């Protein structure tokens, strides 16, 4: 039987739709709670609005990247499973890897000609392989706050320093990981870095609002353009 009929079948859409709806439910619930508490702790409406606007800009670019990365997964795993996996727990690299291993374990190679059993094995392996970190966060996120307090030596004024240094280390890792690929991604990361650094240093003197608001968007797109022209 043609597995793609199953992979794009009605009941699979229903199951995957429920999953996507669950993620939306959690986000909306947390958004409502966060916006409510923001008023009580003195965050202004302007601050919330600029966070929302920036988040939309910071999401659209990389999301389009996920979208084009999704094609290979769509061709082999069908619409519902790809849609579900990339809205739920996953990332393109992990899903391709897990689907490939699953399909192979099921006696096929990932692709439009695999057997229905290989497809189902892929679905099961993708599911099981992605549950680790969501279980860990479900059970231990509240304890991680305590770990952070220990790193701060129990001093509240140290917490922003710990968070700031952690962010710095995290983005250093993410950025240098691309720099060390020595391809067009290297150019993109370095150009993004240089443009942002120049805009930021320049703005320390000028202190212009539009530079602060747009420097991030400008550096992201300029870095990308330079990397494909260069």
């Amino acid at each position, binding site marked *: 039987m043609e597995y793609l009929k199953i992979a794009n079948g009605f009941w699979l859409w229903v199951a995957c739709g429920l999953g996507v709806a669950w993620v939306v439910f959690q986000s909306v619930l947390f958004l409502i709670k966060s916006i409510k508490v923001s008023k009580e702790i003195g965050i202004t409406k302007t601050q919330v609005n600029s966070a929302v606007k920036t988040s939309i800009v910071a999401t659209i670019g990389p999301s389009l990247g996920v979208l084009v990365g999704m094609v290979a997964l769509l061709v082999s795993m069908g619409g519902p499973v790809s849609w579900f996996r990339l809205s739920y727990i996953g990332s393109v690299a992990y899903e391709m890897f897990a689907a490939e291993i699953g399909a192979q374990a099921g006696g096929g190679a990932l692709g439009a000609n695999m057997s229905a059993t290989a497809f189902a*094995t892929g*679905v099961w392996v993708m599911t099981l*392989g992605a549950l680790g970190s969501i*279980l860990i966060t479900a059970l231990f996120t509240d304890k991680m706050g305590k770990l952070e307090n220990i790193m701060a030596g129990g001093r509240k004024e140290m917490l922003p320093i710990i968070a700031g240094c952690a962010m710095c280390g*995290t*983005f250093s890792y993410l*950025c240098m990981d691309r720099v060390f690929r020595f391809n067009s991604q290297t150019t993109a990361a370095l150009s*993004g870095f240089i443009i942002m650094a120049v805009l930021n240093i320049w703005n320390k003197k000028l202190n212009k609002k539009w530079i602060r608001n747009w420097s991030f968007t400008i550096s992201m797109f300029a870095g990308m353009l330079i990397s*494909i022209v260069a």
Partner: protein
Amino acid sequence: MNNKNDMSAYHNKYIPSIIKWGRATNLIGVLIAFLPGLVCTAVYGLKPQVAAVIGGFILVASSEAVFWIVEPISYFPTLGIPGTYMSFLSGNISNLRLPVSLASQTAAEVEPGTEKGTVITAIGIGVSVIVNILILTFGVILGSSILSLIPESVINALTNIVPALFGALFAQNVVSRPKTGIVAIVLACGIMILNMLGLLGWVPGDPTYVIMIVCVFGTILIGRKIEASDMEKAKEAE
């Protein structure tokens, strides 16, 4: 109004409620993740061999398992409590949730690691989850036949948005805390060069997790010392 009263709603109501709901939604999320597999097997009668599924799982786990622990702990200070629950349920953490966390806190001019920073991050990540799902839903409706018509140059360009974004956000960190930024650059370059030279071969599995731990926790350890002593000096100068 004094500052402590201001934050009582955050500590006494908001965070306990986020933990209760975060734990519940993520645990139920684990169960929901099984639905597509169950539908394949129960509705469509596809019965993959248990041995094949377990074998595949072990192969995936052998390269992923260490990240199940390293990623949540490394990213927690950036994402905060609500952001961690949301990010690990929705995925796409490095390319979407981490950048959004930093960018939205900068835009709202709040300090990371503070109560306000955590709430702004939660709002930013919540919005990003919804926007990402809207874009992917649109893509699935278009379908693979239309998506595959996108020219290669556009695909390459879109792929390079994420590295440019990482570069820009890292620059922002370096400009706002130059000393720690330089430490982070030295640590990252050092460990990545060691890896290129094959000197991390003794590490079990793919050494990426070691690189991540050195970058994040190395920067915390050294940066904390530098910034704490700068803070003391600033106090003494006053």
